[in-house]
């Protein structure tokens, strides 16, 4: 366990930093809250996740700019969908806690931290992918993201929901398998012109049924992850 990890446990437990967490004054309390949040995010490798999400945005930009995709129909959605699946996989693995069981006995803030982190990462993923698409945007040359930012938001949140559900079932480190498998199913649905709401990524970004399905999955994943947290395994994985 690294020093940062130890500090996170200690801080959230209020063992060696009780005076910092004490609500005697608003300033120190805010400072303690910020420190707790910072340590929580660092222990989940959120800075690395942000770098990886930024890389996904760059790949999306390159895919659009250099015409990596095939055709203009449904095939054009294949690559963006894969990249959106990758961001969801990254979000899913950040749910892993290096502390395991002891962390759960440290107070009432953990669910809020989980919720905030998942929402913040989803927002960051949507923003960074949208930034990549915007940087490549050139409608005169036919360079634009067909699904627009709506498609990015729908897929990232829906796939992340699958990842969060998987983190509760399989554990954080292997939760990437959920978004990966679900993206593969959606890719197949896209190619085969299947149009079930549950494979929302294969439907137009403005489709109401697809949005409802994606948001329901996201809400279930988020709620389950917030309340229960990722599954803990004896091996630590």
């Amino acid at each position, binding site marked *: 366990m690294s020093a940062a990890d130890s500090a996170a446990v200690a801080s959230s437990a209020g063992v060696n930093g009780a005076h910092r967490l004490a609500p005697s004054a608003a300033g120190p309390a805010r400072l303690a809250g910020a420190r707790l949040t910072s340590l929580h995010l660092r222990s989940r490798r959120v800075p690395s996740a942000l770098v990886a999400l930024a890389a996904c945005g760059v790949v999306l930009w390159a895919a659009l700019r250099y015409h*990596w995709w095939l055709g203009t129909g449904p095939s054009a959605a294949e690559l963006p969908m894969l990249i959106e699946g*990758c961001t969801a996989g990254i979000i899913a693995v950040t749910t892993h806690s290096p502390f395991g069981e002891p962390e759960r006995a440290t107070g009432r803030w953990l669910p809020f931290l989980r919720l905030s982190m998942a929402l913040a990462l989803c927002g960051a993923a949507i923003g960074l992918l949208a930034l990549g698409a915007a940087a490549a945007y050139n409608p005169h040359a036919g360079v634009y993201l067909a699904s627009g930012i709506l498609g990015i938001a729908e897929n990232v949140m829906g796939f992340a929901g699958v990842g969060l559900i998987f983190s509760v079932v399989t554990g954080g480190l292997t939760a*990437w398998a959920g978004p990966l498998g679900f993206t593969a199913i959606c890719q197949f649905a896209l190619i085969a012109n299947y149009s079930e709401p549950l494979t929302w990524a294969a439907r137009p970004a403005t489709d109401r049924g697809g949005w409802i399905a994606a948001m329901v999955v996201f809400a279930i994943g988020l709620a389950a992850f917030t309340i229960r947290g990722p599954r803990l395994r004896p091996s630590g994985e």
Partner: protein
Amino acid sequence: MTAVAGDARPARPGPSLLAARILRMEIRHSAFVWSIPLLAVLFIYDPFRTASGYPDLWTVRASVVLNKFWPDCVPFTAAFSAWAGSREGRRKVGDLLGTTARPAWTRQMFSLLGTLAWVLAVFLAGIVVIYVRTAQVATWGGPPIWPVVVGLVALTGVSSFAFTLGALFPGRFTAPIVAVGLTVLALVAFRQSVDASGGPIGTLSPDSLVPPNDAGVFYPMAPDVWIVQVMFYAGVVLAATGLLGLSPRTGGVGWRRALDAASAGGMRLRAIATTVFAVGIALAVTGFGLAGTARTSVTGEIEIPALHDSASDKPIAYTPVCAHVSGSFQVCLHPAYKNYLSQAVNSFRPVMAELAGLPGAPVRATEVASLTLPAFVLQDNVGDGEVTGTPPVYKFGMNNALALAPDATQLQDGFRQDIVHAVIVGSTGQLTASVGTPAQQAVVDGLLKAAGSQPYPVCGPGDNPNANRCRRQQVPVTAAAGRFAALPAATRRAWLAANLAALKAGRITLAQVP
């Protein structure tokens, strides 16, 4: 309990037994097994269902092995291989394992083999299902082996590369990023392969276009591209595994010490790793270079000049299967299309009943390699063949006639349209310049309607101003065609016998059509 003498040493398992035991342990603990149910679902709905819908031909059905099943396997293979490769680094047990008797490279090889065993077993199982299903319906030829070899070697390449990346960069993000990265790479390579100017990357993509349905039927499939692909992916396998043995990050000895014969211990292992890596790079570079020289052969396939065997340009001997349609008219097909003979007979029967014996009407229909047909037939999709020679013979190919998705209408309408147009207007070649006078069009459409087929698509598909204007102009032609089709067959035939020469010469007006 048997007593054991104090100085007796326990029996040590032999090296091969020990290796088998380690491999068995790795196979049992591989996480890939969890992806098998999902892969099975994807297999049933994607490659298997697609292949079952394709024509009953070995080459076309076997194409799903690389076009559908291989890309389905890539993300899972990459993800779980990278996951297995990152195991020691992720769990931070490098120091602990550094004291084991076996080198890190050996240990990692078994971990890689454990994942690879599942990957290849799943891939082979899928191929067996597709091939058994095809064997039940195909009437000629046998299972193509090269797609299987390419698929296996390419998946091994994906697995080795992903495993090495996992070992080099262990972390929680490695598996999803490597999986999606390699899938994106496969998708981009596929895009290059369907692009006319694909280049070496496109040539090296196992996932490419579905071959024409008479590929490998009249001429053997040249294995040039497959050989280059095997060469390239085998190179990737060797380079990736060699790198594992050399990189200090994965427990190897590092680049400098690998070449230092005087350094202590493990010299043989370093020499092997260096050789494997060098051979792998050489193979991959050679494969990439050869792929850059790809060009289209005389049989319409992609050939690599340095590897091409001219024997594969020679036609395959076969005995056609024939059936009588009406009178002396018979239709002959390649035995690979035996299942479609009755459909072909039913297609020709009504139209030959109308036209048999008239000047220019074919005396028989024979399937030929699509390659031997004029370019306009293949390029413009104006028909399935042409009526040519004296006496006239309808020579056709099955490429345009037989859709990838079963469509009996396409098969029957294509043949009928070709023959009626050839007799009333002229050969299909002339159709590219003119679809005939309004009177000719009316008679053609009337005969096709009487035979139960769609009229010739003069105006083209789509809802655009030109097509809509054309359709408005066709209204009187359609009315005349309806009148002509409503005549008794004997009356139609008598009118044609008396007026065919004038009609063909363009001297009959639309109003003169009965």
